[in-house]
């Protein structure tokens, strides 16, 4: 278990990534005590990812992107934002990973190609080599999104590269470092952000399956506003209809996430509010099996259920 001080630093480092402009006053006050110079750095590495999680983190409604890049920014490296490129970017990255640029925390987006390391390369090294080296110097890691947590789509059946998630990767190498899993394909920005706030204010959040219980303890189905329809057996029979989406294949009953109460894109909407069945993107087994389709429409049309 990591002590609270370490967690505060982790938290602060991530706060810096997303800014703190609109936090509640006590949280803000707690954060303000950490002088910018003392805030540890964050190294954000992408493996076999689609960058969707990074893009989702930029959709955070509050705090503002301005705070992200000013007051608390210690995001030492992110391939999408860093001004420096090429050998000098690699040099910066390696200074941290070699332990020559001070403490840092690792944020990982994307799966690791365990059986085909050449399938993901950053500079002169494979992604796997960077992660192994970082394990020796980092203070801890956050796995961001389905791919980094459990392998995601790259690890779905047919997986040619041996794609796996970060925790699995470290365990296979006997590396025992704290990895917090934030699932979702992509993550909701709040899931990452508010985990950090919890770390700052209280310390280690309660974890279920290495994921913060605050967001992932209850099923989409349990929280769903259409649960009443489910009980009354008011089911949508085809796509675009209202009612409970269970008979179209909704995976809300199998998926732990708080989308029904949190909503997406600044509270604009979320899957089921737009009549789209939950496809279980926050589940550890998301998209895993070829014979477990997202929807049941084809079955209804052509195959005896």
């Amino acid at each position: 278990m990591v002590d609270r001080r370490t967690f505060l630093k982790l938290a602060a480092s991530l706060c810096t990534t997303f800014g703190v402009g609109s936090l509640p006053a006590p949280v803000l006050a707690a954060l303000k005590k950490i002088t910018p110079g003392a805030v540890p750095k964050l190294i954000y590495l992408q493996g076999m990812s689609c960058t969707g999680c990074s893009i989702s983190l930029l959709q955070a409604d509050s705090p503002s992107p301005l705070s992200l890049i000013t007051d608390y920014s210690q995001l030492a490296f992110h391939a999408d934002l860093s001004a420096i490129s090429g050998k000098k970017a690699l040099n910066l990255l390696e200074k941290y990973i070699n332990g020559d640029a001070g403490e840092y925390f690792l944020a990982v987006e994307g799966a690791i190609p365990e059986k085909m390391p050449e399938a993901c390369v950053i500079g002169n090294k494979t992604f796997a080599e960077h992660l192994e080296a970082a394990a020796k110097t980092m203070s801890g890691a956050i796995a961001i999104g389905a791919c980094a947590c459990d392998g995601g789509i790259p690890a779905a059946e047919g997986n040619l590269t041996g794609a796996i998630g970060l925790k699995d990767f470290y365990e296979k190498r006997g590396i025992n470092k704290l990895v917090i899993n934030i699932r979702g394909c992509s993550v909701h920005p709040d899931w990452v952000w508010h985990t950090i706030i919890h770390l700052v204010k209280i310390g280690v959040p309660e974890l279920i399956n290495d994921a913060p219980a605050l967001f992932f303890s209850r099923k989409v189905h349990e929280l769903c506003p259409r649960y009443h329809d489910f009980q009354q057996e008011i089911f949508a029979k085809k796509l675009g209809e209202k009612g409970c989406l269970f008979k179209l294949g909704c995976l809300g009953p199998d998926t732990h996430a708080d989308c029904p109460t949190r909503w997406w894109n600044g509270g604009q909407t979320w899957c089921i509010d737009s009549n789209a069945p939950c496809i279980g993107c926050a589940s550890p087994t998301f998209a895993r099996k070829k014979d477990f389709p997202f929807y049941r429409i084809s079955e209804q049309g052509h195959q005896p259920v």
Partner: protein
Amino acid sequence: MKIDLGPVTRIEGHLNVKTTIENQKVVDARCVGEMFRGFEVILKGRDPLDAQQITQRICGVCPYAHAIASSYAQENAYKLEVPANGRIMHNLIQGANHLYDYLLHFYQLSALDFVDVTAILQYTGKDADLLKVKGWVQYELASKKTFPAAPFLPRLNGDYIKDKDLNIGALKHYIEAMELQKKANRAAAIFGGKFPHSTAIFPGGCTQEARLDHIINYQSLIGEVREFIHNKYLPDILAVAEGFPEYWHIGASKGGFISYGLLPMSSERDSQRLLTGGILQGDSISPIDFGSITQDVGYARYSSPSGLKVSDSTLTPAPHKEGAYTWTKAPRYDGNVMEVGPAARVLVDYHQGHNQQVKSLVNSFATKVGIEAADLNSVLGRHLSRAINAVVIADFLLAESDRLTPGERTMADLSIPKEAEGYGATEASRGALLHYIRIKDYKIDNYECVVPTTWNASPRDDRGQPGAMESALIGTKISDPEDQIESVRIIHSFDPCIACSVH
């Protein structure tokens, strides 16, 4: 002298470019896509309706384009009649996604190639955002950190804009663009269910209802983005162009152009599109035949056969293949190298005199900055083309959203045939995107995606012809062989996305 430009930052994904420098000039360039996942193999054997979900995960920057291409391919295969509302919603989602992507690309990914961040230290005004940034940079620089003011410093050696006010204005817009891109994505999510990775897009339409409150909400968000495009984005591009006029003539690719056309104007298949498609070679325009597209793998890490047509594609990775230098295949049209993307969209449409707004924007900007339409094949040309796309798309979206009929259906009834095939072609923000699906026994028998950056960052084909971006780099004069800011500006002008190109 051999210099690797990778890892290239401020793009999507894992790109290296191997350059050879002689006499301060790039004499060879090889684009190396360094990440492979194997999507086509993952798709094989799955339920066809999984495809518009799985393929969105090829790219989280332009997932909606993949959802739309997959939906078009399935609509063709299922012979679906799409209700008018369904097609309009597809357009509203995809168009808004283009707008966000252009802003993100110019400000977050490209601006630091031209704008001098350190100018903020001379800021004397009262803008709260800028004062905050100034204080932060001052603090960072005074600290004893190994890398102060990361991720904005260190940066590449080079000449940056000298005018203090221009720099500071652009930095202010960098901050504002981060807010505006969210609004464009929120607008798209109204109908897409969420962004990134929409759950509401299907072949045959969208599951979201057509409601007046959705329309008004959408129009208000897009209206704000449109204002930013006109008042800030366009002027900023022109300001960069004024400071670096030589970039109207740097970074031209040496092949033709393909655009599949963007945003169908009615729900019928093959209906006219807002920006029309075609092949442009020299001055001649021809219609697109998907059968003329082949993909070479002589220099790509696959042992599957080279030169296959899209519908015959197979995928066998061979990470140690002799002579191969990238995971990206080399698509060719009738054997010819093609550039895709914003400039291709504008040029292909302009040469057919199709969209009058495109025509007048190109003509007026060309006169204003003293270039020919053909000069859009350049670093600045690609940036300006994005802004032209943005202006045309934003106007269209406001009008298109008025065409939604509240209360009418938004989805076709779906029924998956036992055997079928179909192509789906659209324009992602980065260019021509093609999906192909073949269904056997109600399951996916073959799926192939030929993606914009597969064209642009393609390696040599089997005849040895360099890809579009390689050809744009070769011949470039550079000041500092190690940093090559000139080459990086060329690469950024293509907005490469490696997750897309290899997938």
